[in-house]
Each structure stands twice: as C-alpha cells, then as structure tokens.
C-alpha cells in the first residue's frame, strides 16, 4: 500500500475496473467524481423546476397554484442543499484538495466515502416526496406553515437533516487533512488560496450545520407530536425558528461563496502569469468573512417582528461583510494589472464571476441597510440578489473550476472555442434572467407569487426569456464537454503551466496522486 506501483499509462481512472471498484472506492478523486456526477443530476432536476417556475411567471399557464408552490420549493431545496452547497467543496474540493497540498488522500477516506452515501441517502429521501404528496414550504421551512402543511414536508426535513451530516463529515475531513497532511515544505504561507478557502468553508460547515440539524429535528418533532418550541399555538415562538434556521443558512451562503472565491484566486494568477495581489490579505479576508458570517444572520429578519435593538446590531455587523469582500474583489482586479492575460475558458468564467459577484455584493448593501430592506425584503429584489450571489459566484466559480480541472480529471482537452460560446450564452442568459428581477423587486413584486398584478408582466416575460438562454448555455456546455470526454485531445500534465503542486503530476493522476511525496520549496504563485 505505501509503495507506489506506477506502471506506465495507469491512472486513478483505469487502475481498477468495474462498477464495484467505483462504489467501494476510497480514492478521493473517484469520490469527487461520484459527487460531481450526482450533483450534475440534482442540478438538472433543480434546473427543470426553475424553467417550470419561469414558464408559469412568463405567462404560460402550465400549473395550478399548489403545483407552483411545490415547484419553487423543490427548485430552492434541491439547488441549495443538493447542488450549491456541495458543488465546489464536495465535488471539486474532494478531487483537488489532497493534490493541492501534495497528499495521497484525505485524512479519513472511509468517512469521505460514507459522507457521499449519506448525501445520496438524504437526497433520495427528499426526492422521494416527488412521488408522495410533495412539499410546499419553500426551502426556508418557516414555522408555523411548515408545521401545518399537509404535504410530506417531514421527508424533506429528514433528507436535509441527513445531508447535513454529509456536509459536516466533509468539513471535518478537510480540516484534519489541511492540518495534518500538508506535503513537506508546504507551510501555511505557501498554502494555495483555494485550500485557504476550503479550510474556511469547512470551519463554517462544522460550526453551522449541527445547528441546522437540531433545528430540522425539532421541526420534525413539532410536526409529529407538537413539541411546542416553534409553534405559537403551544406557546412557542415562530420567530425563534427563523433565528435557528438562519444561524445555519446565512453562513451557508459563505459555504457556497468562499470556495468559489478560492477557485477564482487560483485561476486569476495562473492565467495572468502573475502572483496573486496581496496573498496574505486575501487569506485573511477569507477568514474574516467566515467569522462575520456567524454574526449577521438577523439581517434576514428585519421585518419579521425581531426587536429593533437586534435589527440595529445585525444591520451594523452586516456592514462589515462588505469590507473583506471588497478587499478580495480589489485584489483580484489588481492581479490582472500588468499581467500577460491568457483568455482561456477558466479566466473568462473568472471575469463573469467578478462581474456577477460585484453586482450581487453591491445589491447586498441595499438589503443590509435597514430602511431599504423593509421595502425590498421578500420581494424579487432579494430573489435577484441571492441568485447573483449564489448562482453568480458559486456557479461561475464551479464552471471556472470545472474547465480548469477538466484536463486533470479526465486527461482530455475540450474545445476552447465552444467553451467561449458556452460562457457567453450562460453569462448573457443569467443577466437577462435576473437583472429585470431587481427592478421587479423595487417595484414591489413579492416573491413566491403564483400570479401577479399586470404591471409586472413585461419584465417577467423578459426574465423568462433569459432562463431559456441559460438552459441553452448549459445544454451546449454539456455537449462539448461530453464530446471532449470521448473524443478530446490528450491533455498534457500541466496544460495551464500552473505552479501549484497538483499540476506537477500526470493527467489524469495515479491513484496515489504522486509517484513520490513532493517537497514544496516555493510559494504557489511565484510566476517569475
């Protein structure tokens, strides 16, 4: 086991054959790919629901109010718990992290595999409700509606509960991996920023997810027996539920955003052939964001009946999210300065990220400031904002990462030209879909509306049109990446001439990642 048999041509993909060698694998790269595949499936499901919702609002009357409520609930639940949260850490992170730190595997490969199957179980439980009574609570499960609803909400609650543990174990694994398994010479100041991001993400995962777990557990008991902590009819407090829920779900936004930021911090130096601007500042900002993430959840509740004092405190604290975020954006842009930019797909997606994320971040200020939030919260402004932040950052980051690591994952190159078109389509589609929603929100269109007053028709139709562009973009991406898998040119071991250690091995790598344990002697971005 500890010695490496490296017969030429063998890699982690073909080292062992057969289905059983995959379902029982302990190799972080294979587990990463299994996550990737699963998440692409759930992403497809969530996408279909999104299209349905958009069609309904675009004026095609395709469903009843109840079906609509189920549709947006599934869209939200699937996208948040089964796509955006595990997308980069569990899929890309699992594949890349050990290689980035020159390790053979994560600290606990068995727990890693277990967490995948836990995720699968939870996802299956949630998906089961599609064939039962469905669920119509919205992904936020607000009590007391989630207590009253006659739909099979309990299944989804338990599903999310279980998926939470998958998230916890991934985080636990990454923390220990980064602490204990760094290659010789890989000091903390030489750690690639993607690792810093995954590290901060893991810290959030292990700290916040347990609270979601207990919240969903209590809510399930509330439905089953009426334990009365959240149900006003039995003396509980429904607003307390919102505190419990957002204590997890706000940091969760950073579980989604931070890894994407990490990816961008990798991509930009590589494709501008320059060291990242202000490495320490970015690493620090990453942890700054992770910490502040736990202090600001109340800004989701400014009109919920929360005390004015709490509103004051949470609004004030929320403002400080802007500072480290700003530092990162400025540093990324400054990294481009006097570089030698190579506009491959990953950098294009990084640009999309910067554009979309900046818009998302700035509109965040509208919702962090108390006065503006009162009018804008629970309207389409919020919907647009968090799509810009979640989809914008996470999805663009994920696509950047996918195009960045594709050669390493499969040893194949994709067509650059097709990638550029895909990027263009998705970017345009995204903005056409969601920018109008800012205006709809400002005009006062509440979210989760099945039907709306005539004033809002035009912009909704525009938005629906945009959703088709996005869909086209993804279908296109699926086609050319699929083609690359079967007919793509063989990838060199380091196609982007990156300096991080994960590129200093074969593509695709061998099961143990490296022939011999690498020794790190320089920083990750020293493009001299």
């Amino acid at each position, binding site marked *: 086991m500890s010695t490496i048999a490296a017969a030429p041509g063998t890699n982690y993909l073909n080292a062992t054959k057969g289905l059983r060698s995959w379902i029982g694998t302990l190799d972080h790269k294979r587990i990463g790919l299994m996550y990737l595949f699963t998440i692409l499936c759930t992403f497809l499901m969530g996408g279909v629901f999104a299209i349905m919702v958009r069609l309904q609002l675009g004026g095609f009357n395709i469903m009843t*109010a109840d079906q609509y*409520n189920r549709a947006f609930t599934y869209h939200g639940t699937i996208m948040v718990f089964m796509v955006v949260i595990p997308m980069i850490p569990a899929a890309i992170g699992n594949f890349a992290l050990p290689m980035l730190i020159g390790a053979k595997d994560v600290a606990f490969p068995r727990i890693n595999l277990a967490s995948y199957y836990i995720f699968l179980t939870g996802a299956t439980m949630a998906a089961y409700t599609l064939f039962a009574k469905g669920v*119509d609570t*919205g992904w936020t499960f*607000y009590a*007391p509606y989630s207590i*009253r609803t006659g739909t099979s909400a309990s299944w989804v609650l338990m599903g999310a509960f279980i998926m939470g543990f998958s998230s916890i174990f991934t985080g636990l694994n990454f923390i220990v991996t980064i602490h204990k398994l760094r290659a010789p010479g890989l000091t903390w100041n030489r750690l690639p920023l993607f690792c810093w991001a995954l590290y901060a993400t893991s810290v959030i995962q292990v700290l916040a997810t347990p609270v979601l777990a207990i919240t969903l557990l209590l809510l399930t008991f509330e439905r089953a027996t009426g334990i009365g902590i959240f149900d*006003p*009819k039995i003396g509980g*407090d*429904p607003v307390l539920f919102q505190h419990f829920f957002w204590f997890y779900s706000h940091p969760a936004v950073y579980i989604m955003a931070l890894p994407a930021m990490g990816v961008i911090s990798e991509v930009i130096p590589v494709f*501008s*052939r*320059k*060291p990242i*601007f*202000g*490495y320490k*500042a970015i690493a620090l900002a990453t942890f700054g964001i992770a910490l502040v993430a736990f202090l600001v959840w109340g800004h989701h509740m400014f009109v*919920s009946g929360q005390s004015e004092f709490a*509103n*004051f405190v949470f609004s*004030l604290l929320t403002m400080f999210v802007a*500072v480290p975020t*700003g*530092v990162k954006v*400025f540093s990324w*842009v*400054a990294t*481009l*300065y*006097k*570089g*030698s*930019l*190579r*506009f491959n797909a990953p950098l294009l997606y990084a640009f999309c990220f*910067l554009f979309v994320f*900046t818009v998302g971040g*700035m509109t965040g*200020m*509208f919702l*962090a*400031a108390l*006065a*503006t*939030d*009162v*009018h804008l919260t*629970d309207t389409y402004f919020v919907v647009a904002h968090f799509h810009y932040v979640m989809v914008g950052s996470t999805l663009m980051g994920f696509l950047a990462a996918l195009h960045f690591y594709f050669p390493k994952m499969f040893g194949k190159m994709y067509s650059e030209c097709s990638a550029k078109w895909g990027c263009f389509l998705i970017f345009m589609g995204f903005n056409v879909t969601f920018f109008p929603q800012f*205006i709809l929100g*400002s*005009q*006062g269109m*509440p*979210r989760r*509306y*099945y*039907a709306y*007053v005539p004033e809002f028709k035009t912009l909704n139709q525009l938005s629906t049109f945009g959703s088709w562009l996005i869909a086209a973009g993804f279908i296109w991406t699926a086609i050319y990446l699929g083609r690359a898998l079967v007919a793509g040119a063989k990838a060199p071991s380091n196609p982007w001439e990156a300096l991080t250690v994960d590129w200093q091995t074969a593509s695709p790598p061998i099961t143990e990642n490296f022939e011999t344990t690498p020794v790190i002697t320089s920083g990750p971005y020293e493009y001299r």
Partner: protein
Amino acid sequence: MLWTLPFFGTLPVQASEIASRWDAFYIFLVVLSLIFFVIVFGAMIIFAVKYNKDRRAKAEYIEGNHLLEFFWTAIPTVIVMVIFVWGYVVYRDMVQAPSDAYEIRVIAKQWLWQFQYETGRSEINKIYVPLNKPVKLVMTSEDVIHSFFVPNFRIKKDVVPGMYSQVWFKATVLGEHHLFCAEYCGTSHSGMIGTVIVLNDQDWKNFLKGREIPAAGSTGAMGTAAAGEVAAPTMTMAERGRELSKTKGCVACHNDTGAAGGVAPTYKGLYGSTVEMTDGSKVVADDNYIRESIENPQAKIVKGYNPVMPMFKGLLKEDEINALIAYIKSVK
C-alpha cells in the same frame, strides 16, 4: 447600463410621507453601486485589453502594495458606516408611530385580511384610511405568518400568530393602492391581495359613520340599497358575544341571570368586580382576566368552583374573544 433605470420610474408611486426620503436613500445607494461598479469593471476591461498575452508576453512580478491595500480596506469601511447610519435614521422614523396615530386592528388569515375599526366596523381585504393622518395598524395572524406590504408606502411588516406587531404610515395620495402579502403563506399566497383606499376628510368622516363610500372603487360597490343610508342599529359586539356564548356552549355552565348554584360563576355583574380565588388571592375581573379565563381557565380558579372548564385557546378567533368580553361587560 441598466443601472440607471431606477431613475426612470422603476420605483412605485410615492404615496406616503416616508416614501420620498426612502427613495432618496435608495437612489444614493444605486449611484454608489454604479460608481463602484464602473471602477471595478472599468479596470477589468482596460486590463483585459491592455495586458492580454498578445500585447504583453511577460507579466510584471508584483506581490502587493500595502498602501493600496490599506486604502481599499479603510475607505469602504467609512462608506458602509455612512450607509448604516443613514439607513438606520430613516428606518427609525419608519417604525416609530406618532402617539396621535389612528389605530386600526388587522387580523390576517389564510387567505384574507380583516380590518377592525373602533366603530365596530369590520372590512375584508379593503382598508380605508384617512389622507395625511398617521395611521397605526396593530396586526396579528390566526394561522401562519403573513406580511403586510404596501409598495407605494414603502412599508412592510410580518404578521405573526401569537404576536401583535405594529406598522404605521401617513398616506399622501388619494385613491387605491396595492396591498400584498409578502410572507409565503400557502396555496393562495399570491391571492392574498388587498386594497388600501385613501379617503379625503369628508369620505373618512362618512366612513366612520358607517356610510358606504361611493369612491370605494370597482370591488367596493355594495349595491344601491344601502348607499348613503343613515346609520341604524345592527348586531353589536355584545350581541355577537351573546350568540357566541350559545354556539360555543358557554351557557351550559355560565348564566347571565345571576342565579346561584351553577356549575360555574355567573356573568351578571362579573365585569369590574373583585373575585376571590381558591388560593385566597383576589383578582379584579378586567378584560385580561376574562380573556385568560377563556383561553386558559386553569390559570385562576374562582373559590367554590372546580377546574372543569376546557381551554378555549386556539378554539376562538381574535374578534370572537373581543365579542365575548364585550358581552360579559354588558351583563350588569
């Protein structure tokens, strides 16, 4: 750039006192975002053109610049503080109702709004308010969380079961304004739409006198029979209370004749009197005591009686309790 759009009617009508100040702050934020956005994305475009690999084969080796980093940490910090303070100042005036505000009770339930006026008048999904007078709403929900949202007034407040949340506004534009439920509340969430009807002085006076308001809009027409008719008596709160005391079975144990020896205390002369409890303590029978005794009878047991009454918490609607209390009050 679409960012300039907010200046061209993308905000709803300014129909309340606060709206103009709100819009000013909003537009400030839009401009600020715009500037920031131009800086960041402008720089990106310029760098993308100027420094791509065809123009520039070798990148310059720059690891950072502490002065720059200090500035782009410090300046945003100052800006966000400005945003916070401005936002908080406007917010305070949005939530603190003046003491002379006219109070209207709001009861939300799946999926309609009920408005109760001090005159006993009760409206469904149509809330009539006076022009240029502060109005305070005291709101509660009977089932799940709803949210009272009037875009033209720039106000929103969740309506939570078990709580009495408040919101206030001073309407400045006559006529009808949209009222939306902004917190997802189930099947007909998007159908839980009402109308705020702002009345001029004369109409408001008439409204309080129980007259129909001709200007009440398309959905408001109540037929000709009643229009402009002078107020005549109908079932009062107390009467409804009496009805309820029958339908809810109170009369089985409580009487209003004062006859002694019943299973439970009589209503006659109860209100305002001092009642002795089994534990010897004395309580004045006021609204709160009666309400408590209805919702949670076991809390206080009157001397000489057994704790046999069922809890009515959750079984009675808000205004049914109002009515019962009014009825008990009326039995002197």
